[in-house]
């Protein structure tokens, strides 16, 4: 896999690092809006409106993440991903679809897509997913046995969490929530991603499940002395960050 720009592990998560993203989307308005929002985040974005052209481009040039529409002229998104994987290209692919059916998602993922997003989506959702895909491509399949953030230390073999020396007693769901946040430390994780990864829900319950669990987790962390570790990013989701800056409203 070609990964241009992957020189500094610390700086690559910050905006300003020029990471290459390929958008394959036939609706020019949607494509340009997506491109504009991603460019604002500091990515270098290429846009193509045709699956076959995209396939050639992917072979010629390395991208960090590809955002591919499910329905494309000539070569549709699923066939594109399958062709890409057949050629040994492992670049993470986010499949974007207007269909949004369960069967469609399953077909997409089975054919080699890494994530799946239903139109219309919030840009924050798109950004968070792209960041998570980028991390996955960098980390590969390695699952670290320990996760840390500042003085917070999670031992995944013993399933225990410590703040400095004292252990924090967490319920299984709170542990899993913290684990997902820690795996994405420094990057916002959206409510939808948490629903998928913590609860295994592919639907949106119209209640405050995520908010309530976050607030319970937060109060346990704060009781142990970890102040303002889990921050809410309005509209975007949650982030765990060792920097104890002011929590946005």
């Amino acid at each position: 896999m070609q990964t241009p720009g992957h020189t500094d592990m610390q700086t690559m998560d910050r905006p300003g690092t020029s990471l290459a993203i390929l958008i394959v989307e036939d609706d020019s308005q949607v494509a340009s809006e997506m491109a504009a929002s991603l460019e604002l985040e500091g990515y270098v974005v290429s846009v193509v409106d045709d699956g076959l052209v995209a396939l050639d481009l992917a072979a010629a040039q390395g991208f960090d993440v590809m955002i591919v529409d499910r329905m494309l002229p000539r070569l549709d998104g699923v066939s594109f991903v399958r062709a890409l994987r057949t050629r040994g290209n492992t670049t993470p692919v986010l499949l974007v679809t207007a269909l949004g059916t369960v069967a469609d998602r399953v077909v997409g993922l089975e054919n080699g897509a890494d994530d799946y997003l239903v139109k219309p989506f919030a840009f924050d959702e798109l950004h968070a997913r792209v960041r998570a895909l980028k991390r996955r491509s960098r980390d590969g399949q390695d699952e670290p046995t320990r996760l840390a953030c500042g003085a917070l230390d999670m031992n995944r073999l013993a399933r225990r969490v410590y703040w400095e020396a004292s252990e924090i007693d967490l319920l299984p769901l709170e542990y899993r929530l913290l684990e997902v946040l820690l795996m994405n430390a420094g990057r916002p994780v959206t409510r939808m991603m948490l629903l998928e990864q913590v609860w295994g829900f592919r639907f949106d319950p119209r209640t405050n499940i995520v908010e309530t669990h976050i607030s319970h987790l937060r109060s346990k962390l704060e009781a142990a002395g970890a102040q303002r570790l889990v921050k809410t990013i309005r509209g975007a989701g949650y982030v765990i960050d060792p920097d104890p800056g002011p929590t946005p409203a």
Partner: protein
Amino acid sequence: MSESPRPPPRAFGSSQQIWRRPGIRLAVLQVVVILAAFVVAGQVARSEIQALSERTFRREILGEMSSLQDEILRQGESRLPRTIERRTRLWRGFEYDLVSSKGEVLGGRLGTPEGQLGWQIVPGRGEWGQGKTFLAYAQTTPSGAWLSVGKNLADVQREMRLVTWRLIGAGLIGALASLAAWMIFAQETWRRLARISDTAHQVRAGSLAVRVPHSEAHLADDIDDVGLAMNQMLDRIGGLIAQLRQVTTDVAHDLRTPLSRMRQKLERLERSARLATEDRDSVSAIHGDLLELLRTFDALLQLSEIEGRNLSEDGVVLDLEEVARRVADAFRPDVEDSGRRIQIETSAAWVQGDPDLLAQLVANLIENALRHTPAGATITVGAGTFDDGVRIWIADNGPGIAPDQRKAVLAPYFRLDRSRGSPGSGLGLSIVAAIAARHNADLSLSDNGPGLKVTARFTRPDGKVTQTAGPKARR
């Protein structure tokens, strides 16, 4: 909705009641007709045989009579008593009577009544004649004596009984043979009907791709026509579903693309620094309305997807206990923060199904309970294996739903008058009903005394109770 859901449909060929099989009554009728025909034929044959034997008897008797007459002519009548005595002793199958004109018995033991000439039936007399009936012919001799020759009809009757038994035997063998031949034919017919029935059950269970198999071995008959008609019907249904799917896909695509642009522009506008505060509030409100619209749109699409979906393709074996606990645990903080309680009472409950959809079923029902109960209420989430299938249930002790409205709440967009002011798309319970239907589960709403209890009972597509991989329910 009742607590005792309708019995699952019976698969063809599993019937223990042979009387319900097609053609069996006709077959029985056929056997009865064959036996009746044999009885009639037997009766006819009997009378024919009887008439025939009687004719033979008469001929024999007349022959014997003329032989006696010859004796008289040759040797004179005086020797006749001795001849009769000899012939009786030697017994050639005839009985005789010789009575002189004065009424004196000269020989024989037949006991023909006096004065009657010609053919007559003579009942046996005394101990010797018990149970015997004779056919006799009486004549006068040249001297005026009374001579009669008779033959026992019991021999004929014995022969007749023999004939009757043979006829009954032949009739039974004929009936059994015809029954056996019919069974061989009927088995094949039943097998072919069973194939049509199996196909219908598989379609009901969700595999729309199956077709009635047809063989080229025999000439096409009515059953082949039924199978063919069913296959054509399935082709048509398949075509309509594909068309509906295509329309749904097109509508989803054609609506989502402009909605995507709209949402993107609203997001950008909302973040724009140039916007006045009140304008920003309006944009936020529009954005919120758009999201609400998208939720309803998604719910509708999902409803049509679940209803048109082939479950057998993506069903996995899973434990509803795990699903119930996972979802209930997810909701627990929310429920408790709202001043309600959630309790879990589950045991192993293995079914085949879609884990995402089943989690949504539980979640929608918990949300529903949360929305329609006052603070302080208790929501119970349960799952387990019972004699009549695997069940999952969500119950509350809130106001409940009146019995006459229980079925209506499952219809899309139905909302009880008292819930009209509260948020919700009105599709939550419809999605629950669709998910249950997709899993061949009976959904029932019942009184929890007080409150509402919603139960989904899972049975296998063939109507049998879902097999359990775990221990029996504790309850």
